[in-house]
């Protein structure tokens, strides 16, 4: 679903920029949206069941106008941008994979292992089942290494 949102946002901002250009007003500068949380987990296309609420968490450097358009397009899909997303803690080593490169912005998702570490540390109860299923399906060496770095006790996910 997020692919559809990104495509729609890109078209929308491109149209808006065209109008702004004609009117001699500064265009919306190129920006990025980095998906976090469950949206990033769903975008990672895991084989294990993933559930999420309608909230979309993302770091982004967009202008007010671009954010308004993003929120409106998400709302059309029944989704809601969490405006406190910039407060979400992510490990400092977090890497992001490109999932969209449009005319007006770039879309990324935080790589799965880092999202799961963030969840394991900051919202253990809510994500216990997800992390346990991930461990059973075969956690990556990177995830296990990050667990060691951040002192995560895997016994807590049984």
């Amino acid at each position, binding site marked *: 679903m997020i692919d559809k949102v990104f495509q729609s946002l890109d078209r929308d901002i491109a149209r808006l920029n065209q109008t702004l250009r004609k009117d001699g007003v500064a265009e919306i500068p190129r920006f990025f949206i980095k998906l976090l949380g469950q949206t990033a987990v769903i975008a990672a296309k895991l084989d294990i069941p993933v559930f*999420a*609420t*309608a909230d979309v968490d993302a770091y982004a450097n967009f202008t007010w106008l671009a954010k308004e358009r993003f929120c409106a397009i998400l709302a059309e899909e029944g989704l809601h941008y969490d405006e406190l997303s910039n407060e979400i803690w992510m490990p400092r080593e977090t890497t992001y994979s490109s999932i969209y490169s449009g005319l007006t912005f770039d879309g990324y998702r935080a790589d799965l292992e880092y999202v799961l570490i963030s969840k394991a540390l900051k919202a253990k109860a*809510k994500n216990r*089942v997800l992390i346990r299923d991930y461990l*059973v399906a075969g956690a990556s060496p990177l995830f296990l290494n990050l667990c060691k770095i951040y002192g995560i006790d895997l016994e807590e996910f049984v």
Partner: protein
Amino acid sequence: MSISPSLKKRLQASADKAKSARQSSRFKKVLGKLVADGLIQTNQVYAPSRGKISIKDCLWAGEFEQRILELLPALVLKRPGIFSDLEHLPADLLGVIKALRRGEATEDFRSVPAASYRQWVARVGHKGKEPTLLKSFRFSQADLGCLRDLSELGYSESDAVRMGLKLMCEKFLGEGEPTDMRATKI
């Protein structure tokens, strides 16, 4: 770091139990409703559930997916019509609902922090609307006269008080909408 065989075995047993629960008709019915209503997104396929769902089933399914418990208090409060067994609310859920009605929900609900379940009150059912609270004030005859005059312009007395509060907040606090009034339609 690696997972010890003993831990792996226990994780597997626990995952098998959850998998079996997720394949049950009770879980599918609850998720079918929540997914169809756009409250939960998932990478799994659930046939949309028709008819009412049971609170008992939601509480049970919530043991395997905590986001269901996060949504449940707001759903009971704002969309009671989707449940078949409202008359059998467990004491903890009833307590949370009462606290939400009073705008005083601060206790966790089955490990879900209050802030997490409270946020859904304005976002499910009639969106943007939160329960209103009853407050009593003593007004002078002059104040009542103002309220009457405003009501002749087509505003209810509550609307007049809300508008007055909004204007004062804008003037003295520099805020467009005070936090408690975001959900109030004026």
